[in-house]
């Protein structure tokens, strides 16, 4: 069984995926006009003069959600192998995973109570 073949195809797909933008943009470069002006290249701000810096400080909420994501996403690292092997394992494994997920749920409740999940502005 040449299992590697699967990954060769994966590689081909990724390669094609990269190739398309490269080709398209290169072709586009030949076809499209290029007449840059100062105004064209300025930052768009609904037609007004840009104010302040573009890279504004964003809401702290974003970080909190990022943290939550990191924690819960990694949980799936355990859920997936568990789910795959589940049918071959005993009842105890169910209990163990139940405990594991219950702990995470407690984490969710914690975040909930601490108003982490409440979005209050942009």
């Amino acid at each position: 069984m040449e299992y590697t073949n699967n990954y060769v195809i994966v590689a081909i797909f990724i390669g094609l995926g990269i190739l398309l933008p490269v080709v398209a943009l290169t072709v586009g470069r030949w076809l499209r006009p290029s007449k840059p002006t100062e105004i064209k290249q300025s930052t768009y701000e609904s037609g007004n003069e840009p104010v302040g810096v573009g890279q504004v400080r964003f809401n702290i909420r974003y970080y909190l959600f990022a943290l939550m994501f990191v924690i819960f996403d990694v949980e799936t690292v355990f859920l997936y192998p568990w789910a795959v092997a589940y049918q071959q394992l005993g009842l105890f494994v169910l209990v163990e995973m139940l405990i594991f997920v219950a702990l995470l749920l407690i984490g969710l409740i914690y975040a909930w109570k601490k108003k982490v999940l409440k979005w209050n502005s942009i």
Partner: protein
Amino acid sequence: MSPISNIQPLQWADLATLAPELTLVIAAILLSLLDLFLPRKINRDVLGVLSLVSVLVSLAFVISKMVSMGASADPAFTAHAIQLLGQSYRVDDFANVFKIIFLSGTALILFMSLGSIREDEIQHKGEYYYLLLPAVLGAMIMASSGDLITLYVGLELLSITSYILVGMKKNDLKSNESAFKYIVLGSISSAFILYGMSFLYGMSGTTNLAGIAQMLSQHLVDFKVLIYVSFFLMFAGFAFKVAAAPFHVWAPDVYQGAPTPVTAFLAVVSKAAGFAILFRIFYNVFFPLGSEEYTYMRGDLTLSVLIVAALAMLIGNTAALRQRNVKRLLALSGVANAGYLLVPIGSFNLSNFSEFGFYLIAYLFMNIGALAVVMIVSRSSGNDEVSSFAGLYYRAPFTAVAMTIFILSFAGIPLTGGFMGKLFIALGAAQAKDYWIIAVMIITSVISLYYYFGIARQMYMRSIGEAFPIRIPAPLGITVWICAIATLFLGVMPNVIVDFINHYFSISFDLFIQMGS
């Protein structure tokens, strides 16, 4: 899929063995929920009391387990360890001794925090109380693990919780900053440990300590270089965790920035836990090496442990000379003490674990006691400078006397636990014929006299203008005196502890993890 069928799941019966750990887990969960749903106006000291209770319950479980195991053990020590989960978790007397140390240290810290932590210092007192539980749980897992994975999980449970605890003073810049330094350097050290572990795994194909030991000793010749590499990587990481020089740079900053009880936790429980795995891994994996023509290898490894020990003593003690902040000073003294504690690990002799355990216990009491005094003093003066001790003798004579006891113990003056511990360690090293390390130990203690007695000088020989008495919260006062009495007791009657350890502990059955079973 054969590997799956090899996994030995947890049995219901194992839960009884895990009672101490489970107590803490359940308590931590329930307390965190309680904290969430309890109305704001209820004082969170309730949670502190409950945490303390759960730690004590867990301690009771550990002791009863230890006693029952000791009773059932036949003379050949065969039934001395209970192994769970395919030998990845292991309840033996080595672990139990450490667990007792961790739990009693945590209990003292919790007790002294009760009523003495101010709301403006730590805003979420409830969190502080129940976060100590997973931290100590991590330490317990570390002491009990027989497998690299379990070990690492325990280590990180402890570390990550400690990072949070250090940053507990959310609005205090120092606390934030020290937490950040701690997490950066702590994670780097974890990475080192992990990197070393990965080589161990690579050489043996297993993460079980016994399996690794077996493979390494069988294929020593093939892996010579890798063994050194993994040893030094792991040792660097562990030296970080126990704050041994030259990997100690984080300690002063972190100790200074952390809330004082957390400092005590880091100085005692966290450090002890680091030593627990250091001991376990080195004795299981690295030091049994050196059959026949490769004895030099073990020599190299132990020598490097001793060198780090010597460096820690030298650097810790000399750097402490310049400190004006008590917590930084204690951090550096902690570095030196890490050096003392490394000596029994690096020198082979017949009593190293009891020496080590004894000194660790002595260190626990003197350190917690000293930090409790620091708490008392900084409550009244608002800072942690050495100069805030000025005239303490006039303002709180008994506390000053207790502090003197701790200082004497730190400095290694007889009739205190600290002296006894150092003496035992020195004698052990002498048995192993590592004479030079004795010299380093004792000479550096002389250097330490200067800064330890600097505190005494402030307390007795300096005075501040008005000598109004200091108000001491009862739990703090009691903690100080428990520690002082324990320190003296250890100095006068060291037999009690040493006999206890020696009665239960057996090197070959408690420290080394056997294959099979």
